[in-house]
């Protein structure tokens, strides 16, 4: 066998180095200096290349999602309006809260500040991970563990933040966990990204009712990081029988099509005086009346009924 001695020595040295790196990074708990350096070095390259290859990649991607490709055009145009609407109103509780804040003269004082971003690359690492890079970073005010949303709902959370690029953990990654509650009954639980299997929701109270079609929204994290409240996640498609378990489980079809995300927004946490203040998006024209009045011509307005109306499904194409 050729070069046995020397080759084995070199291989041993390399493996040892790799083990050392693994140990160091494992102890730093992720997002370590090397990874940030990777973001700083490779991020700009990926960005530049993405400018050229995005149409190519989108073309291939679109072969699987021709419908969503069309829908995306419309979505981009409506994104701003939709984000505002979604953030302002998802259910009656939200509307009540807005009214309460009116009373406190807090409406419009603070809100979600959203940094818009575009997805430049996706990760897979031998098909185990579901991550993406977006083209904003610490220079744009993005920090680790912040909520990432798009016009349809929850996309994920930020992980390693570089100067101009940020890695985000997508909602369908097996490591993804977010506090969630059923919008209708306020019952809390958690959603688990399932990788290539379906996303699941575990309802903490196994006696509480859960039905197919129920909608899930995020449950606020401590200090709203990583997750701000009330962001739509998905809809229950199947309730799994939970005999003898401490929680009941449901399958979730997310509103976001994780294969086709493009324009996203990072909710940049803003300092504020009241914890619930950020629930309300800044209104361009501060209206004197609180919003829970059902609007007469509101065909798309989610106000008015105690049960949130069926939100449109994010994409007409089939699930991945």
């Amino acid at each position: 066998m050729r070069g046995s001695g020397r080759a084995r020595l070199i291989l041993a040295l390399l493996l040892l180095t790799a083990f050392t790196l693994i140990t160091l990074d494992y102890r730093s708990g992720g997002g370590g200096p090397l990874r940030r350096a990777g973001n700083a070095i490779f991020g700009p390259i990926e960005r530049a290349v993405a400018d050229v290859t995005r149409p190519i990649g989108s073309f291939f991607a679109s072969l699987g999602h021709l419908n969503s490709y069309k829908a995306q055009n419309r979505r981009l145009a409506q994104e701003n309006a939709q984000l505002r609407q979604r953030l302002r109103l998802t259910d009656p509780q939200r509307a009540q809260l807005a009214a309460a804040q009116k009373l406190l003269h807090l409406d419009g004082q603070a809100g979600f500040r959203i940094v818009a971003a575009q997805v430049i690359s996706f990760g897979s690492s031998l098909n185990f991970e579901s991550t993406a890079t977006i083209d904003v970073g610490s220079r744009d005010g993005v920090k680790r563990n912040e909520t990432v949303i798009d016009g349809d709902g929850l996309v994920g959370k930020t992980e390693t933040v570089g100067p101009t690029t940020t890695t985000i953990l997508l909602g369908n990654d097996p490591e993804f966990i977010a506090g969630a509650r059923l919008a209708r009954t306020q019952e809390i639980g958690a959603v688990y990204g399932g990788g290539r299997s379906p996303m699941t929701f575990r309802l903490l109270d196994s006696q509480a009712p859960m039905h197919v079609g129920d909608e899930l929204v995020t449950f606020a994290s401590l200090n709203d990081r990583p997750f701000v409240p009330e962001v739509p996640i998905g809809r229950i498609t199947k309730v799994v029988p939970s005999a003898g378990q401490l929680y009941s489980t449901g399958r979730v079809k997310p509103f976001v099509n994780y294969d086709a995300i493009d324009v996203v927004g990072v909710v940049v946490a803003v300092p504020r005086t009241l914890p619930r203040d950020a629930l309300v998006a800044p209104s361009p024209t501060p209206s004197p009346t609180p919003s829970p009045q059902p609007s007469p011509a509101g065909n798309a307005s989610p106000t008015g009924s105690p049960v949130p109306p069926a939100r449109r499904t994010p994409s007409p194409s089939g699930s991945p």
Partner: protein
Amino acid sequence: MRRAALAAAVVLTALVLQADVINRIALPLGRPDLSLLCVIAFGLTSGPVYGAVVGFCVGLAADVLPPADHTLGRLALAFAAVGYLAGLVEDVEERSVLSTVAVVAGASLVAVIVFAGLGALLGDGRITGAAVARSLAAAVLYDVVLAPFVVPVVSGAIRRTEPAG
């Protein structure tokens, strides 16, 4: 020297193309891994030492390339092993297409097993039986399909940079 520059150029191209283009494509099971194919090509053409070194560097780059989100060093270790093993097959003078395909399939299996094994040791929640099975299937299937296009091109480029052949 020229070979090192070539290796860097090929590998960087492969890594960025992987992240920017290939990973956008929604395929059943998973996606092919361009950088792994490059490592195999380097090993097959230049022997175990070069294969291991290139594999380590490619793996490390893939570990820190932005969307990656696992413990740093896992791919470096897996790819170094793969490059070394592919290099051991270098001696086979007349490689048929079939033997190259066999090497690619074997090397892909090794890469996934080492990467997943390390992940399991470190308590990575992504490593489940179903995920490993799916990843193994995807690695073998797609890497083998892509190998006849990638490996000869990379090997040819390497041979052209070394005068001794």
